[in-house]
């Protein structure tokens, strides 16, 4: 990859893709943003690799299709992540694992009892969350989204986002409790 391409900002590269169909510019954008995007989608999907690949691929295709109309009011990464998040939600719905109540207010999940002897690290605990709770926790506690942004992205009320985050953290703590106790024993 030429140095000039590596040094170019996202907008310059995107213009090269839109105006000239530059494959090298696109590959630079892809390599710049895909590792973070891939990890993000993988977390939202609870570690499902094949689905993550499909979502990431489709996200890039949709971005490329709409790139000429992108107004750069947000960063490319934010836009890309939003598109990927919507695709991930569609994938979760297709799975049939998202219960409607997870995206609505006021239903507390029941944490399945983890085996005491099993050490569950944080990543595994997040992956075991119900899909809706996991999405809110990943967006808020890992990606740094506000509840307002989460509400817009997931099309839920701000209050729903907050309560789901509360529940999600409670479930994660319940998962992690035995291993913490073992460490402190």
């Amino acid at each position, binding site marked *: 990859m030429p140095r000039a391409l590596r040094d170019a900002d996202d907008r310059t590269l995107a213009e090269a893709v839109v105006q000239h169909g530059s494959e090298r510019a696109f590959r630079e954008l892809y390599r710049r943003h895909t590792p973070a995007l891939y990890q993000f989608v993988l977390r939202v999907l609870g570690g499902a690799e094949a689905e993550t*690949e499909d979502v990431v691929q489709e996200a890039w295709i949709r971005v*490329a299709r709409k790139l000429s109309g992108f107004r750069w009011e947000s960063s490319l990464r934010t836009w890309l992540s939003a598109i990927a998040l919507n695709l991930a939600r569609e994938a979760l719905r297709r799975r049939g694992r998202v219960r409607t109540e997870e995206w609505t207010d006021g239903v507390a999940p029941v944490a399945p009892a983890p085996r005491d002897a099993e050490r569950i690290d944080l990543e595994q605990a997040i992956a075991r969350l119900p899909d809706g709770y996991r999405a809110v926790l990943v967006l808020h506690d890992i990606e740094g989204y506000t509840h307002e942004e989460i509400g817009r992205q997931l099309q839920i009320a701000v209050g729903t986002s907050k309560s789901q985050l509360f529940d999600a953290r409670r479930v994660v703590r319940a998962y992690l409790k035995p291993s913490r106790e073992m460490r402190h024993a």
Partner: protein
Amino acid sequence: MHEEDLTPEERQSLADLTRERRPPEDLEQRVVRALRAEGLLAPPRPLRLPRSPAWIATAAAASIALFVGGFALGQWVASRQAAELLVAMHQRDAAQASALVQRTGSAYVSALGALASVSGSAGPQEVAAGREVALNALRAAADQIVRLAPEDPLAVRILQAVHGGAARDSLDAGGEVASRLVWF
């Protein structure tokens, strides 16, 4: 519940989670292929070579030079290998011939010894025939030794002795040089 509900330890644990993961190698190519198929990326450009007459002439000259150089090199390598092969064959042939002389010489001497041991009990004609065969072989061998080493005085004397003996035998047989070829 809000962000402040996280303990410092929990906050640190979340901050320590990896933010990036390397996607599968083939995913990039899949995405690029899909975008090409939609016409969003330009198809890969075929290799374009200049077509000017000067370029073609230069390319032709370079091709011919390459061919001739390769041919000459091949010839040289082949001839060198052939010469080495011939030398090796000659060396091997000489060694084999020397060994054959040694083996047949031993057989010749052994055969003469066997003839001598049975000469008392065998018929005189058979013994005479055997003696003649042995002498003819000796003369033929002397011829070859002189041919092999013409300056060797011993070889010359042997030749003279065996041919002198043959002449006397012929004269003894009736004044004619009788020559009987005995194949063995």
